[in-house]
């Protein structure tokens, strides 16, 4: 079955091509476009499930598995036919033929991503058919989304770095297109450009790393590269060997794509795109491409202890940084965006401490609960008539039950409450940080991660409280201010703009320039037609005026995906139940191959087992992933190790693990209780504490002024440079050119004068002289009398005759003279 996985990326591409190329021309209706898009993704998902099942669990599945390449069954083509590559890395030198095949690879890692991308993608596609209803650019949206699915699947299914790069750039392009979906809004256009340019910086590092890989290993194919990389020597902290530099380039690429410090600035702005885009691209899939890449190249990363430390510290810094910003944001999507950045930081933290499997586990659970929450936010925005400011929400629990209950699952998951999915992955990340032996300073990473977890629980509780609980603030009169005006204006225009839904509406999103909200959706009349309960809403609107729209629950096409995702956000973590529960489950990683640790272990290289000579010989790899290797004797080299310190005092490994689980649960509880205290029981507290901690509050509220700093340090300096270059160009270069022009003008004036007065004068003088001399003579000859002319002819004839007979005449004359004399 799994030889058909080449269809998985192809189907969304086909759907995108049909929608994008024909959707407008043939005026496909929304069900047709949505059907093509959702159908292609659903088919991809089914093929993925079948392929992964037969690959890992089928009757003839091998274990440990070998990577399956579609080229084995001929489903590939020679994409970049070979050229000789000069390999020079000291160990072996020479030339290799670089042949890049376009072939897909199925292995445990790519299978996890295939399922996430197509599965979560399917939910989001279905959601989007409801959310984008009524958009003039409906076909365009789904064309971009399909193209994104294709690119993302190429990224995770490619069998070599060049294919990964193609997918990498493809998702970047689609991200750009989809952030700028409302391209007539300046804010969206700016955000899309910001995302694109910031990603370029990361892609630069990634491209350099790929060149380095090709130059070092003579191949871009994963299997060949990693086979060779395993034989390279380890590079300890401070030793910047070849693999460290390659890993640095790769990590710069990952930072750009996964929004890590210092390249995180584009992701919050990317919320200008439609909410399904935020859910699919900027929460569930694309931003995790960096994690996929780091995990895919874990052999290279694990060779470089320096880069592992860098990854862990950058991840930890990003986690706490973004989490603290998330506390003070008021836009529901901005909170979720910073939450995503923070969670991505957690994942990099896990990679950095060597727990790659856990990072991917968190990618998966995060895809579930963050996609759920983004879609929930989209549902809220939809129900609130494009209101995104949480200060104007509240009490939505009553109006949007499906959204509320599913969001609740996501909230518990991200806070890390047992047994919701987020608990399992986040707890393992913190445990991995505390117990790591691959890098020093693991305890700092753990401490920062725990604080970030508290912040996470706090701001998510705040989001819940401000959105779903408490007073129904949307009933109150608008408090004025920019947001309210924009809102009211949007509402006004929203009513009027619905005429634009006629077939002739073209491709313009129905938004006003100042509008700051998500997609426009149905008008009141439409609600009345589709939802029976909309009648009282319409009448309520008359009474409350602007800013007092009664929210409504979203249609089933929107809440059904929410329910599906909520189920996964709740139970999805069970595939990664940690070793701390071995007394309950009986084994460290229960579930056999269904356990994500067992499933992914074959693709994770383990330096510890490598050193012990056990690599590749452990079936089902019980407890040998990176974090577990912590208990080896090598730990002493990396200084203080928190987990070991605790373990040496309690004298029990199990007890140590449980201590950390309790700490993590307590952290989540503290965050949630604080959030409840601030926003449910004592609503006055936030203002009081914002006053008390005013500098901190302002720093967080203004996102630590990173954008301002970049604007000052990079954008302004670039502009200054451009201005300086322009000035140089205008003054010096143009000056030289103009000066030369002036010089040649003067010179030509000189030459012209000489020519005019001297040469021409000379010529004229001579000509005049000759003319005056000769003209009377010649004029006199022209008498006009025929006889004169005839005379001249006769005289000439005579002269001619005389000349002809000159000798004879002379002789005759002589004889005459002789006769006379």
């Amino acid at each position, binding site marked *: 079955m799994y030889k058909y996985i080449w269809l998985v990326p192809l189907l969304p591409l086909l759907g995108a091509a049909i929608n994008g190329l024909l959707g407008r021309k043939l005026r496909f209706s929304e069900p047709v476009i949505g059907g093509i898009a959702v159908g292609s993704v659903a088919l991809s998902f089914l093929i993925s499930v079948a392929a992964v099942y037969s690959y890992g669990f089928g009757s003839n599945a091998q274990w440990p598995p070998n990577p399956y390449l579609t080229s084995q069954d001929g489903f590939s083509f020679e994409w970049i036919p070979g050229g000789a590559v000069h390999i020079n890395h000291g160990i072996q030198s020479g030339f290799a033929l670089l042949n890049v095949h376009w072939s897909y690879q199925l292995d445990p890692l790519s299978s996890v991503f295939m399922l996430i991308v197509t599965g979560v993608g399917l939910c989001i596609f279905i959601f989007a058919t409801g959310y984008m209803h009524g958009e003039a650019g409906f076909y365009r949206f789904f064309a971009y989304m399909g193209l994104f699915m294709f690119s993302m699947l190429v990224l995770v299914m490619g069998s070599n770095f060049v294919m990964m790069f193609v997918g990498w750039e493809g998702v970047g392009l689609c991200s750009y297109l989809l952030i700028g979906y409302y391209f007539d809004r300046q804010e969206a256009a700016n955000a899309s450009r910001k995302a694109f340019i910031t990603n370029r910086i990361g892609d630069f590092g990634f491209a350099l790393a790929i060149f380095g890989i090709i130059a070092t290993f003579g191949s871009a194919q994963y299997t060949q590269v990693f086979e060779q990389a395993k034989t390279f020597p380890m590079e300890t902290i401070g030793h910047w060997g070849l693999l460290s530099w390659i890993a640095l380039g790769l990590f710069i690429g990952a930072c750009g794509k996964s929004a890590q410090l210092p390249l995180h600035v584009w992701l919050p702005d990317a919320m200008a795109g439609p909410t399904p885009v935020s859910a699919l691209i900027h929460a569930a899939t694309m931003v995790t491409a960096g994690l996929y890449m780091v995990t895919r190249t874990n052999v290279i990363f694990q060779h470089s202890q320096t880069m592992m430390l860098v990854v862990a510290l950058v991840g930890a810094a990003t986690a706490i940084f973004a989490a603290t910003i998330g506390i003070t944001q008021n836009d529901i999507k901005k909170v979720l965006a910073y939450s995503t950045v923070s969670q991505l930081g957690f994942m990099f933290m896990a990679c950095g401490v060597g727990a790659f499997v856990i990072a991917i586990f968190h990618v998966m659970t995060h895809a579930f609960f963050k996609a759920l929450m983004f879609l929930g936010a989209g549902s809220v925005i939809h129900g609130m008539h494009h209101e995104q400011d949480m200060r104007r929400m509240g009490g939505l629990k009553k109006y949007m039950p499906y959204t509320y209950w599913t969001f609740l699952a996501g909230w518990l998951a991200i806070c890390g409450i047992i047994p919701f999915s987020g608990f399992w992955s986040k707890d393992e990340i913190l445990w991995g940080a505390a117990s790591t032996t691959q890098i020093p300073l693991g305890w700092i990473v753990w401490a920062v991660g725990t604080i970030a977890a508290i912040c996470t629980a706090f701001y998510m509780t705040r989001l819940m409280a401000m959105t779903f609980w408490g007073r129904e603030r949307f009933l109150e009169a608008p408090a004025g201010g920019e947001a309210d005006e924009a809102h009211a204006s949007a509402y006004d225009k929203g009513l009027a703009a619905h005429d634009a839904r006629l077939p002739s509406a073209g491709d313009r999103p129905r938004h006003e320039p100042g509008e700051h909200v998500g997609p426009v959706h149905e008008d009141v009349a439409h609600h009345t037609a589709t939802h029976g309960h909309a009648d009282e809403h319409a009448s309520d609107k008359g009474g409350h005026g602007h800013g007092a729209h009664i929210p409504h629950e979203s249609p089933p096409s929107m809440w059904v995906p929410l329910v599906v995702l909520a189920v996964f956000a709740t139970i999805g973590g069970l595939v990664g139940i940690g070793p701390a529960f071995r007394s309950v489950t009986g084994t460290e990683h229960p579930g056999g191959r269904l356990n994500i640790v067992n499933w992914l272990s074959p693709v994770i290289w383990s330096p510890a087992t490598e050193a012990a000579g056990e690599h590749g010989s452990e079936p089902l790899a019980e407890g040998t992933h990176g974090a577990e290797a912590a208990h080896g004797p090598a730990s002493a080299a990396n200084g203080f190790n928190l987990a070991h310190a605790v373990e040496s005092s309690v004298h029990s490994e199990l007890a140590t693990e449980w201590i950390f689980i309790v700490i993590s649960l307590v952290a989540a509880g503290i965050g949630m209780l604080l959030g409840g205290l601030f926003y449910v029981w004592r609503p006055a507290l936030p203002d009081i504490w914002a006053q008390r901690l005013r500098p901190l509050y302002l720093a967080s509220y203004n996102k630590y002024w990173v954008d301002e700093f970049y604007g000052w340090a990079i954008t302004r300096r670039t502009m200054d440079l451009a201005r300086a270059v322009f000035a140089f160009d205008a003054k010096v270069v143009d000056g030289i050119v103009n000066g030369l022009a002036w010089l040649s003008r003067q010179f030509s004036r000189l030459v012209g004068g000489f020519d005019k007065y001297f040469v021409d004068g000379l010529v004229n003088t001579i000509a005049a002289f000759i003319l005056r001399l000769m003209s009377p003579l010649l004029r006199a000859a022209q008498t*006009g009398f*025929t*006889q004169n*002319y*005839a005379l001249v002819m*006769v005289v000439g004839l005579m002269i001619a005759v005389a000349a002809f007979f000159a000798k004879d005449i002379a002789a005759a004359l002589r004889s*005459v003279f002789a*006769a*006379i004399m």
Partner: protein
Amino acid sequence: MNMLNSFIPALAFLFQEVEGDRWAQMRHAAANPDLSKFLVIGALLFIIGVAGVLTRRNIIVIFMSIELILNAANLNFVAFSRYLQETGSVNALAGQIFTVFVIVVAAAEAAIGLGIVIALYRNKETIWVDEIDLLKW
């Protein structure tokens, strides 16, 4: 003195010594004209014609002078024809036939020329060539 110096040889040329009776010789020569006689007459006719063309003002007279020139040529043709007939080297009739052509062309020329003269007279009211200097322009 210089004039005298050139005049005397001319006289000498005219009155050079001839043997025998001069008149008898001249009569003989007239009765048996050789080629040179015809050529001299032709040359005289030609000179008279040219002088007439160059000097006369009446355009009709100029036409008549042109006829003289043409006839001088005709005379030469005929004379040479006769001369060559005696030597018998080439087809001697060629000269006579050419003469006929010249006469034909002369007739045509006279017709055209007189036509031009009439046209000229009608426009300029004159047949005096020194009043006609249109070629200047």
